[in-house]
């Protein structure tokens, strides 16, 4: 889905400094209505602070924020049409599941029967029924996650903020919730802003991804853009780890004299490499079995790079193999991108 013409959230040169720490430093951003937008970055990169700026838990030190055309700075969190799903859910421990979900409606003065009906609907939306009278402490992590989602969605916010919502779940549950979130996004057509440090999560779920580093956005684009065409070494490394070649090394591997990214899965080994336009002889240093793939470390021209080979391709250490890749797989970048 592409963003529609209406802008849901806009940042104009927004900064948030904590003393000498520049948590967010001059961020420009436009999130379209109905977009599933991911903020990706390592911890301390400013992505969560950006989310808190939208929610209103933080005030910008400088710059301007708009939510659906309205100035947001100076507006208290309870006066914004924005709801948050917190990292550790932040469910009220002294309330039942139903009371938790109905909370937003209760403080808006919606009568009891009506708000309980809406809360039940929200709970069935996240497929958590029959738990109305339980306390959060009696639920599993995945169930709490669903309650937190229902509690935010029941208010029909214009923007739903999700702060690493899947971080505390185990792998299986995380994948299930990823599907669930995508389904909800499609079904409700709301704007989702999703903070994560997990690049897989960002790439698989979002319409667009902003990669954060040191308080700044280093690249914004579709998941394909970010993955296939990283603009800096930092993005290439952080998003799906890549082989990064220096401007000196790149020409020896078929590229131009620029910082260059070569994704490990574009490197083919053995007979299949013969059809590729860049070919080398390599020595296998080490192979690591990872289920579907084998992570294969290779030495080419004295340089160590790694490839993802199908798990059927098992090699001996020290074995000489032919490797190859398409010239188009070499992606030249703007710079190192670590000095931001």
């Amino acid at each position: 889905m592409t963003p529609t013409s209406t802008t849901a959230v806009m940042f104009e040169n927004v900064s948030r400094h904590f003393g000498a720490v520049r948590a967010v430093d001059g961020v420009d951003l436009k999130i379209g209505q109905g977009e599933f937008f991911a903020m990706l970055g390592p911890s301390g990169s400013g992505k969560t602070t950006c989310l808190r700026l939208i929610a209103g838990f933080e005030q910008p030190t400088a710059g301007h924020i708009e939510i659906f055309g309205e100035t947001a700075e100076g507006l208290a969190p309870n006066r914004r049409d924005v709801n948050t799903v917190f990292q550790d859910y932040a469910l009220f421990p002294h309330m039942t599941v139903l009371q938790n979900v109905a909370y937003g409606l209760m403080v808006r003065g919606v009568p009891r029967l009506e708000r309980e009906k809406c809360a039940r609907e929200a709970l069935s939306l996240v497929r958590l029924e029959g738990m109305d009278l339980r306390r959060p402490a009696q639920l599993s992590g995945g169930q709490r996650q669903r309650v937190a989602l229902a509690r935010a969605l029941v208010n029909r916010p214009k923007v739903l903020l999700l702060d690493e919502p899947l971080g505390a779940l185990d792998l299986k549950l995380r994948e299930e919730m990823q599907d669930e979130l995508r389904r909800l996004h499609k079904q409700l057509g709301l704007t989702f802003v999703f903070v994560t440090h997990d690049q897989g999560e960002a790439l698989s779920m979002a319409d667009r991804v902003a990669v954060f580093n040191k308080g700044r956005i280093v690249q914004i684009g579709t998941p394909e853009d970010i993955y296939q065409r990283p603009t800096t070494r930092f993005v290439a490394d952080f998003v799906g780890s890549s082989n990064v070649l220096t401007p000196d090394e790149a020409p020896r591997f078929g590229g131009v004299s620029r910082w260059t990214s070569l994704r490990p899965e574009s490197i083919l080994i053995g007979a299949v490499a013969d059809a590729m336009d860049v070919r080398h002889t390599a020595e296998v240093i080490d192979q690591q079995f990872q289920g579907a793939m084998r992570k294969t470390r290779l030495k080419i021209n004295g340089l160590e790079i790694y490839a993802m080979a199908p798990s059927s391709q098992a090699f001996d250490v020290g074995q000489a193999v032919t490797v190859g890749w398409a010239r188009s797989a070499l992606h030249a970048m703007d710079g190192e991108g670590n000095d931001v």
Partner: protein
Amino acid sequence: MSDLALRRRGPLSSLIDAVYRHPRLFLALLLAPPLLWLGVIYLGSLFALLAQSFFSLDDFSGVIVREFTLSTWTQLMAPANLDVIIRTVLMSALVTIADAIMAFPIAYYAARYARGLMKAAFYLLVMMPLWSSYLVKVYAWKLILAREGIDTWVLDKLGLKFLLDWYLSLPVIGGPSLSASYTGTFIVFCYVWLPYMILPIQAALERVPGNLIEASADLGASPRDTFRHVILPLAFPGVVAGSIFTFSLTLGDYIIPQIVGGSQYYLGQAVYAQQGTAGNIPLAAAFSVVPILIMGVYLTFARKLGAFDAL
């Protein structure tokens, strides 16, 4: 290997092994001394005291008649004695409510805002009054509240002394001076027990995660709603814990009303007078059962309110 095992076989190590194999034995060893102290010496003497309330005093000889009778309990229900009980319970309830209202903002500030040095200063200021003698503090208050005291002097200088005079002319809460009125007793009780209310509330507030307050605001609640629906219910166990202190301490105190206040008796004073001056041990015993019963009712009520399982 076997050398090592042999060397370790002293009497102490076999005790350690025995304790390791029987965890209950360890628990028993740990708990026996305090249980002996509490069970035998404390509870034992308490029950001995309670049993005394079923004896009676021979009015003529002043000798305790060691025969089962309910006459002491009938005597306790006399209007003069009931007055003492009602007065004490009312005072305890008022002191508890006033302390809770005063303690909450202080505790809230300490739990949510004070950091580093300010936090240290908070603990210091709250605890410091507990370092000095209770008697010194009470006598100090007597002087402060006296007719010649600083409050009268300040009000006089401000030309507001008529307010104090008007207040003292009120029935029940007034009196010849603040230090000889119910109001004076109330003020001193509130002051002396305030730390016991602040600390449990502060501890309870510390345990309320900050993100619950953010979540409440995020869901559209005004600060007032957040206080009512999130902060207060979660801090309530702390308020109840504090109220148990302030209520029971006021219920049993016999020094403060003796030094500051009118001539009316409180429960503690009644016990003191009956067992000392009057030598009526059975009635003193019956009087001392009263706060125990009241606290029993109070705790049951607090539990019904869900104060103990709110977290």
